[in-house]
């Protein structure tokens, strides 16, 4: 922050010396440009006209992972592997005898394009939801979120990292 300010100061001084005070918008081609720094409050979010927002739990703050181990997927696949079924059975068991809601987040590795991965992550969350419904959880208690290739669990760029990133995470939202 400080060094950027200083380099700006130098540039501004230089321009001023050349008799060009106030010419802030000009940048030499070799100068790096940075968007204006983040500031202020975001403007309020107006409601869309006539659009139902649907049945979704109200979530404030970050969802907490870690209560259940993630369910992992094969490359470009939305199939629940046999090895992952026990994890889903544990999630179903935790939802028995209470009215808590469940959020399933679907994620992909970085080897797909951005928007396609948002659809793929959604289908992974839906595959986990289908399995949970088959295990007796009411579909109305489950909400899905797809992050696509954003928010990887492992920041690496090899098969070990990718395998950890093709996943679903589960969060209980208490009623």
């Amino acid at each position, binding site marked *: 922050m400080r060094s950027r300010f200083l380099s700006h100061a130098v540039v501004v001084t230089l321009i001023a010396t*050349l*008799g*060009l*005070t*106030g*010419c*802030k*918008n*000009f*940048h*030499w*081609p070799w*100068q*790096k*440009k*940075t*968007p*204006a720094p*983040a*500031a*202020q*409050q*975001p*403007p*309020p*979010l*107006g*409601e*869309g*006209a*006539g*659009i*139902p*927002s*649907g*049945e*979704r739990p109200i*979530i404030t703050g970050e*969802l907490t992972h870690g209560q259940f181990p993630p369910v992992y997927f094969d490359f*470009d696949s939305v199939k629940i592997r046999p090895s992952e079924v026990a994890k889903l059975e544990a999630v179903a068991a935790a939802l028995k005898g209470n009215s808590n809601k469940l959020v399933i987040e679907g994620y992909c590795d970085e*080897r*797909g*394009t*951005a*928007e*396609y991965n*948002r*659809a*793929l992550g*959604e*289908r992974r969350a*839906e595959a986990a939801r289908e399995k949970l419904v088959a295990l007796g959880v009411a579909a109305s208690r489950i*909400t*899905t*979120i*797809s*992050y696509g290739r*954003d*928010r990887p669990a492992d920041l690496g*760029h090899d098969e070990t990292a990718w395998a950890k990133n093709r996943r679903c995470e589960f969060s209980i939202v208490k009623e």
Partner: protein
Amino acid sequence: MHAVRNSVLVIALVLCSAAYAQSQVVVGVHAQKRPFAVTGFTGDPTVAGQLTEVLKNDVWLSGCLALAQSSEAEFVQQGNVRSDTGGLTIECSVTQTATKKTILSRSYPGSAQDLRRVVHVISDDIVKAITGQRGIAQTKIAFVWSRGKVKELAVMDYDGYNARQLTYDKSISVHPRWSPNGRKIIYTSFLQTFPDILEADIYTHQRRRVASFPGLNSGAEFSPDGLSIALTLSKDGNPELYTMNANGGGLQRLTHTPGAESSPTWSPDGQSIAYVSDDRGSPQIYLISKDGGEPTRLTVSPAYNTEPNWSHPPPDSEIKPMLALTSRVGGRFQIGIYDTATREVVPKVADDADNEDPSWAPDGRHLVFAKTRQWRSRLYMLDVLTGEQVELPAIEGGASEPAWGP
């Protein structure tokens, strides 16, 4: 084709795309550049120097002109700048060498603060006078600006300068798309945890929630008349394609498959929509009427085609509409153009980097895309007629998912 691609890969980047461009796709279009001399501006040397620098860059990026010496130029620019009480007056004229005719002579009011904007106006006037077509120098590009886990939207001039933030959410904001009047941007936002479609006014920053159904709300794009939006919703079980009124309501489901439909892009006449579906295995591009019905499969190879983006050149342009897309070949993303005649995807940007997110300029000749090397993404401009790539000025952090404004 593979042999060609492999041998080309070892050659320099620009040569590689140029080799493709000359042989492929855009048949019968005059891609030759007209030699143009920028002699600069007389008057205050510092201001004049800046004006000349920006004008040279604009002429270079225009695609239709090539910078040349006055002695070899078909057109020669001359100019003058002087200070008035209210600011600056910039005069610019262009003469056709062969006929000695002045094809442009105008005076532009400006100030030291908006020299770039004034030069962009001049540049577009020059392009209009020479080609009869609207230039791209006054257009803007929206993009996703990422720093760590946060993705904000930003808008910049077409040449990569004057970038400014549009969102300040410290959340994930992605997939921006412009309204046809250039005033609004719709995008996918995780501001309220779930992926919703929001709309932001780029001048007032006022925002509105457009779609927030259960599950995925993403991939929205305005129809050419601005009255409708095509988007992906998963509220009925899995990701399907829908249209809705841009003002809300009028939801209509277009697709019915067990697979995922995504990335809708409108045809120039607004009657049909190209999109991605993985219903038959790997993702491929399909075409459907805006009213639904039976889809037609467009692409068959390579095995992975996504991110279709349909160009909307002006009706009087000799450039025809084109469908750009992102393919995955050999584990790398490359930008291609779908050739309707041969049903083949013709690679346009295929190198050792990942090239994604193509978005057309309103001239239907240039597109902007994201090139990722060493996991850092930067924006590039491509002239599809010449194959020339230009890296836009770097921005701190990553820049991706660009959308070229109208």
